[in-house]
């Protein structure tokens, strides 16, 4: 230990703000969410397109086309299951590393690697899936009015998204709470009769993907702001010298 008093005042010139901005930066690395939602959107469109093609071919008695599109649909479904439960985590980890390769890695939750994002407990996942299937099933059978499918889904989607944000993505971006908030607002607007309905399918799809993208992009933009601020505050006063590591 040594005694110093004259340089003490210089030491905390903005340096005390470094942890705050470092944390804000690390919390808001939400580009992987954007990528996940884009993958989900593309997969959903492919499912929808293939299902429509299969049904159209069957109704118009084009058996070969119907069979072929059914086979492609099945192969795609198997690939999607593989992606969701087996290979997706590894692929998304690689994509994340590539996205942030230039700036390195900083995390406030579990480190990147196995367990980077712990999966929601099985019971919660089953309850959520049951709610999805039940509401879609009841809607298709005509027990639920299709214009209220999205507001009804908000009853379980909003708590699930809040749960994911709070528990699963420890140290996650606060901007991701925009997702359930906007989803809930959309539901309230639909119930109160504001003309924003786009049909039963799009009323579910657009808020799910669109509001998720808005939340994730807001987080990403904020992470750029935080990084710029952090680099300004943390820039070392040392003159860089080229030395071997």
């Amino acid at each position: 230990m040594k005694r110093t008093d004259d340089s003490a005042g210089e030491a905390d010139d903005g340096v005390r703000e470094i942890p705050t901005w470092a944390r804000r930066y690390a919390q808001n690395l939400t580009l992987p969410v954007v990528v996940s939602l884009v993958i989900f959107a593309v997969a959903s469109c492919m499912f929808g397109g293939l299902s429509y093609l299969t049904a159209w071919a069957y109704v118009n008695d084009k058996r070969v086309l119907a069979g072929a599109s059914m086979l492609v649909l099945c192969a795609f479904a198997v690939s999607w299951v593989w992606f969701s439960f087996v290979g997706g985590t590894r692929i998304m980890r690689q994509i994340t590393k590539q996205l942030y390769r230039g700036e390195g890695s900083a995390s406030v939750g579990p480190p990147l690697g196995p367990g980077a994002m712990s999966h929601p407990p099985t019971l919660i996942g089953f309850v959520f899936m049951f709610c999805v299937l039940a509401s879609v099933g009841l809607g298709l059978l005509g027990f639920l009015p299709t214009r209220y499918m999205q507001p009804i889904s908000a009853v379980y989607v909003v708590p699930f998204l809040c749960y994911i944000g709070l528990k699963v993505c420890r140290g996650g971006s606060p901007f991701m709470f925009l997702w359930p908030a906007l989803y809930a607002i959309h539901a309230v607007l639909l119930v109160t009769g504001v003309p924003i309905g786009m049909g039963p399918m799009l009323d579910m799809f657009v808020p799910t993907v669109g509001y998720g993208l808005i939340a994730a992009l807001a987080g990403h933009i904020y992470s750029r702001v935080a990084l710029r601020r952090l680099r300004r505050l943390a820039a070392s006063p040392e003159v860089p010298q080229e030395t071997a590591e």
Partner: protein
Amino acid sequence: MAELDPHIHQPTRLRILMLLSGVDLADFTFLVNTLGLTKGNLSSHMSRLEEAGYVEVTKSFDGKIPNTAYSLTRNGRSSLEKYWRAIDDIRHGAE
């Protein structure tokens, strides 16, 4: 007059420790880019902080690429808090 820890009372090392106190884990590339240091400079500072027991090093491999990540130890965190208290004492003493 308060005493200042010489390991911390160095502008670059102070910034490194403050940066690590805001996150759970940061890798070498992130520290180099954010602090604007050369790899050599950062390595020597990290070695000193590691010797002092203020940072913990985690070495891993991403495929064939080595990755070195750092985190602040409990000792590092408490020393940093003591350092800022000492700075504040000096400030208040001077006023």
